[in-house]
């Protein structure tokens, strides 16, 4: 594998198109990630259609550039205007903004950049080491194990999605139901199509993802008018003192390990990773009361975790075809468009493509460091981009992007409908990512359950095979855990 990575790295360095696409992806990712109201997932969903005409390798250079760089970009607005550009930067603002207000904006941005790079590289290393091992194990899976893994992924999704577990579960079931619309893959019988030709072909992932992650955010942004930000414009010294920076490396390591592990849990996402990393550092600190007042420690740990999540989230996506977070859900859509189905077979049939993904991610991390160091002062200026220009452009990109999938107006209407559905779901506090996860995992779940039943003729087989039984057991425990925890807490409170 190392030889393949070096080989692909050499090819990329000699391919000006690949390099340019990576640079464009990274710059777009930093800029869009930095803009308040434009999340990383939204950036990826909106720019995804630009990759349709590219080769799969070039598409990955471009998309992973956006993916990785937008995570760092989110910290720029968190530090300079106290609004996280991405959900993963939600903790960075707690110390980053006070640092900026205290005249240390440049240093806070550099801390965020270096921690991001460190976390990103460590997450990348974990991806390179563990993904082949997981894929190797997954190669021995048969239909019952696959069905159990998918069920496990969906359950983790409901358990780990921030907010109400119950609402996440409802949204996941709704997403799975959407996946059953149209022709059945085994018998070619159309279901839930209401006689519509468009629905008979099934709901394509891209219009749904663009609607739910892109258009819904536009609708949320236009809901409230007159939003004004107070931007910290004075960025003076960029480099923090070495004496202050050096002792922070253990935090960056701990943050990265936590981020990568949390990122690898299907659907957990960076917001949970950064919260856990920050809480861990605060608990270990001798002066926890200083957190939140503008200290570098409060920037380093969450930023390292935030970027390590990227590598972590790619592990279940690449090896099992299960999205690690909402961005990898969009990436799965991109791979499917290019005729590639993520899963263990990629590691045997398309090892060159796997190596391309590794190289694309590493290159994106290094380019983010480069552009962050030389260009953050200029990138910060785009925080002044007028909302009317931004939102109108994104709305049109959503329309054109959905149309470009199959040159179909039906897909555009689907995108608009899911934009409205996503916006209404936000209004009632129902997470939207499970809908897309359900849509992606639905066909896998159905196909493997039915294959298992066709071959074995009995549901009991799911509980007699050790891997599927363990996964189903853990999934059921995860679902029941909140109820068990509440019951135990109530019982302890009643004790004299």
């Amino acid at each position, binding site marked *: 594998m190392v030889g393949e990575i070096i080989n692909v790295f050499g090819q990329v360095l000699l391919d000006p198109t690949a390099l340019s696409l990576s640079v464009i992806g990274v710059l777009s990712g930093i800029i869009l990630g930095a803009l308040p109201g434009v999340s990383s997932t939204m950036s990826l969903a909106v720019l995804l259609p630009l990759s349709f005409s590219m080769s799969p390798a070039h598409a990955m250079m471009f998309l992973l550039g956006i993916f990785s760089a937008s995570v760092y970009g989110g910290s720029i607005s968190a530090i300079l205007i106290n609004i996280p550009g991405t959900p993963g930067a939600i903790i960075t603002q707690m110390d980053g903004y006070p640092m900026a207000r205290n005249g240390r904006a440049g240093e806070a941005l550099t801390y965020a950049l270096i921690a991001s790079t460190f976390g990103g590289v460590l997450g990348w290393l974990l991806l390179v080491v563990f993904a082949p091992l997981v894929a190797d194990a997954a190669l021995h899976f048969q239909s019952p194990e696959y069905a159990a893994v998918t069920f496990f992924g969906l359950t983790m999704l409901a358990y780990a999605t921030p907010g109400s577990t119950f609402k996440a579960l409802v949204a996941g079931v709704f997403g799975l139901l959407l996946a059953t619309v149209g022709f059945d893959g085994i018998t070619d019988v159309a*279901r839930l199509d209401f006689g519509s030709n468009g629905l008979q072909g099934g709901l394509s992932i891209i219009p749904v993802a663009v609607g739910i992650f892109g258009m819904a955010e536009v609708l949320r942004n236009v809901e409230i008018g007159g939003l004004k930000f107070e931007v910290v414009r004075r960025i003076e010294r960029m480099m923090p003192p070495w004496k202050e920076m050096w002792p922070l490396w253990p935090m960056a390591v701990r943050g990265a390990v936590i981020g990568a592990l949390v990122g690898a849990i299907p659907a957990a996402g960076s917001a949970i990773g950064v919260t856990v990393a920050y809480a861990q550092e605060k608990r270990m600190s001798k002066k926890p009361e200083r957190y939140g007042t503008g200290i570098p420690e409060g920037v380093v740990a969450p930023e390292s975790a935030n970027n390590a999540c990227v590598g972590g989230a790619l592990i279940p996506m690449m090896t099992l075809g299960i999205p690690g977070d909402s961005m990898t859900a969009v990436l799965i859509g991109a791979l499917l468009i290019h005729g590639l189905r993520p899963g263990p077979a990629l590691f045997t049939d398309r090892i060159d493509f796997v190596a391309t993904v590794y190289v694309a991610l590493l290159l994106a991390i290094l380019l983010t460091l480069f552009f962050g160091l030389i260009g953050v002062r200029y990138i910060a200026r785009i925080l002044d981009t007028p909302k*009317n220009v931004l939102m109108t452009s994104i709305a049109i990109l959503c329309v054109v992007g959905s149309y470009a999938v199959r040159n179909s107006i039906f897909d555009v209407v689907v995108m608009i409908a899911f934009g409205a559905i996503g916006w209404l779901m936000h209004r009632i506090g129902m997470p939207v990512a499970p809908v897309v996860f359900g849509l992606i995992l639905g066909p896998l779940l159905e196909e493997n359950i039915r294959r298992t039943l*066709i071959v074995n003729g009995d549901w009991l087989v799911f509980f007699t095979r050790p891997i599927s039984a363990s996964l189903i057991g853990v999934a059921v425990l995860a679902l029941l855990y909140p109820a068990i925890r509440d019951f135990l807490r109530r019982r302890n409170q009643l004790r004299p």
Partner: protein
Amino acid sequence: MADAGAERRSAAGDLAGGVVLFAVSAVGAWSLSANRFIVAGSYGNDPGPGLLPAILLALLGLFSLAMIALAVARLLRLRGTRNNSRQPRDAWRTFLVPALLVVTLLFYAQSMTELGFLETTGTFAVFWTVAIGMQDTGRPDARRLAIWLLEGAAICAGIYAIFAWFIKIPLP
């Protein structure tokens, strides 16, 4: 209780969401039961194409009923409590601009193939650049209006250039 008004709005939202999801599951169940090919698709050990949709529709129906019951219980618990924060009387107005955007998007999408990409996209871009600009900064003077109009036209031209010329995707 911190804010009875917000709690009441949240419960009402859950109630509406539960009702919509129940309607979805009911319509889906009707569609599935009326589909005579579903039973024909089941043979041998294969439970057929109706199995997963039926399970999911049943789950969605149960979950939506639970959502409705929980929301009604919350609303009943809040009955008689006074809102201890300023209630936005015109909360419905927050629906107006997004609803208008959805309607114009549908018109834009439907007319794109009839009237052409540049014409419809230009109109949409100019309209929404001005509308969101006015929403943010109020009534514009002539100079600002001219800037918004130019920005709208530039957005349309830029997107057309990227898709039609740069990545060569055929647009209507």
